């Protein structure tokens, strides 16, 4: 199986055959409503995020940019359900997950989100296939089914022949491909990529970005945090953060014609 064969994940993408009519009729799958996150540091309260609102529709490709300290990481942690906002609502797949408890958040992460990290974060004692299976294990998917799905996604990212290698036997680019397969295996609503090419040389980085482009073409929703404007240019939307607030949302290089910029708050 190749990337193109796996393409028909969403109706919109399928009907378009690549140049999807990414209109606003596509459903909103992720919505931040005035989310705030503050920390208590010593005697001071630091507002890492100070009222952020935006909507992500199914099949969108977003890049989040900003200087360090702008609240990028905090926003990514909140979007990834690794942290809870101090205030505001965060709707993921229609449910407000802002006030869920730890176990429920873990379940949401396992079912609705796929993570791609800068440093790959593979588990070293597991093989490629077992690494890809990890999210399925925590959802209680039977071993045989998990194995089949992992195998399918390993092939999808071009690692079908290396499924029994350990992470340290692979190159950086291959490791990141494993991580991408792991992010896809649970068929998440959104893929969250944090500087996915930060630890790779530029050629390998381009390969990985190409892979993400393909996934986007197939209709997957991607949110990517980066500081590299050329990478951000591959997205449809670029959200610029500054001092915990949205500075502006602008169309990226892949911005479809005729669709206006979503309202910024």
């Amino acid at each position, binding site marked *: 199986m190749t990337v193109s064969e796996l393409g028909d994940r969403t109706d919109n993408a399928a009907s378009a055959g690549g140049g999807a009519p990414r209109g606003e009729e596509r459903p909103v799958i992720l919505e931040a409503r005035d989310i705030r996150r503050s920390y208590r540091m010593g005697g001071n309260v630091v507002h890492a995020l100070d009222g952020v609102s935006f909507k992500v529709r199914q099949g969108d490709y977003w890049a989040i940019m900003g200087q360090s300290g702008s609240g990028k990481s905090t926003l990514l*942690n909140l979007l*990834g359900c*690794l*942290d809870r906002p101090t205030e505001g609502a965060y709707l993921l797949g229609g449910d407000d997950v802002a006030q869920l408890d*730890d*176990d429920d958040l*873990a*379940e949401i*992460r*396992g*079912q609705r989100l796929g*993570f791609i*990290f800068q440093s790959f*974060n593979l*588990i*070293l*004692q*597991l093989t490629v296939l077992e690494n890809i299976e*990890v*999210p399925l*294990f*925590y*959802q*209680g998917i*039977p*071993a045989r089914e998990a194995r089949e799905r992992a195998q399918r996604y390993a092939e999808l990212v071009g690692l079908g022949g290396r499924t029994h290698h350990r992470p340290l036997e692979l190159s950086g680019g291959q490791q990141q491909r494993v991580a991408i397969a*792991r992010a896809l295996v*649970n068929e998440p609503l959104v893929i969250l990529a944090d500087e996915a090419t930060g630890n790779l040389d530029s050629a390998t980085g381009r390969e990985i970005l190409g892979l993400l482009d393909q996934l986007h073409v197939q209709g997957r929703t991607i949110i990517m945090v980066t500081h590299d404007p050329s990478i951000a240019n591959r997205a449809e939307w670029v959200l610029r953060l500054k001092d915990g607030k949205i500075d502006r949302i602008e169309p990226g290089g892949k911005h479809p014609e005729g669709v206006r910029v979503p309202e910024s708050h």
Partner: protein
Amino acid sequence: MLTTFLRTVALGVRSLLLHKLRSFLTMLGILFGVASVVAMLAIGEGASEEAQAKFLELGSTNVIARSRKPSADSDSSAGMAARNARGVIYGLTFKDLDVIRGTISGVERVVGVRSVLKPTAHGSRNVEARLSGTTEDFLDVARVEIDRGRFLTTSDNLRRANVTVIGEEVRRQLFPFEDPIAKHIAIGGESFEVVGTMRSRGGASEKNFEGSDEDKVCFIPLATMETRFGFIDMQRSAGSRSTEQVELHEVRVRALSLDAVPDVAQAVRDVLKRLHEKDDVEVIVPLELLRTVEEQKRIWKAVLAAIAGISLLVGGIGVMNVMLATVTERTREIGVRRALGAKKRHVISQFLVETLVLSTAGGAIGVFLGIAIPFVVEHYADMKTVVRWDAVGLAFGISALVGVVFGLYPAMRAASMDPVEALRHE
């Protein structure tokens, strides 16, 4: 559910194999703790069983008084007074026998025994055997069994008959090829008719409590012994001659029941203390010795429990220490797993299972070693050992318990990490 557990176990094994030396060293604490407990229990159990068997041999309802040559120290005045031209006079007397028989209640049998070494011969074959003069009741107070023929009878004693019942070793040496019954043998120059043979008491109890060979013995009627040989025993040593006069070497008193033993023992002690100014009699109570062995066994077990507790505690602390280090080292892995959907309980079970695998593997190898050590000890040190399976189970169970107790804290610590912090950890 089960497959999830098995997969967690498999994962734990793989994580442990990632650091083989470290895992092995961590296991050693538990391993040696369990091995030493199992081995020491087996050796202790064997020793006490052996001791118990020896004392049971003497008869648990018996109270045994024995003549004892007074030591040189206590030989001062009373000892000198007892010395006459014929040599040293000491030990139990027929008077003692009569007093015990007549004054002590709760007694079923009182049997006197006089034993000396005599050359014994049949034809050209001869053996230096212990000659024991006693009465028919001896059969009731000692663990002896007739193989062929009969034991001594009342009339043998009344008639002062020259009849003898011989032990297995004497039979083997004097009558290797023929039936000894109704044959005559020479004991100390007198002729005795063999009327019976004893069954061998060989095996573990071959050397009895006193260390003499129980099978190398001839029994004759006590009255016959008195008539034929008198009470004077001549001993030759290093060129000088000494004689000693002992009427009875042993008086065996059999109590009516186990409950009566302590009172009978006290009464026998009181009577003998009154009749013997010199310290020339000792009283052995097998039941008391048994109790002592049991008491020692209890103390031994308490000491073992303490050692086991300490060694397993130390082992457990070692395990906890390593697991805490492991948790810190794998902070990033924990963060990743949490991000990929692991709940706290998943993380807890992962690390708990890992600790359990470590401690029960140590426990299993320890059990194996603990069974092997007594085996080797028994083979090379000629000590009886008894591996008790409940002890093995207990030791292994404790190793598993150590895994849970000392694994819980590191596992909780791993689970309570903030996923964001854990992912940021270098």
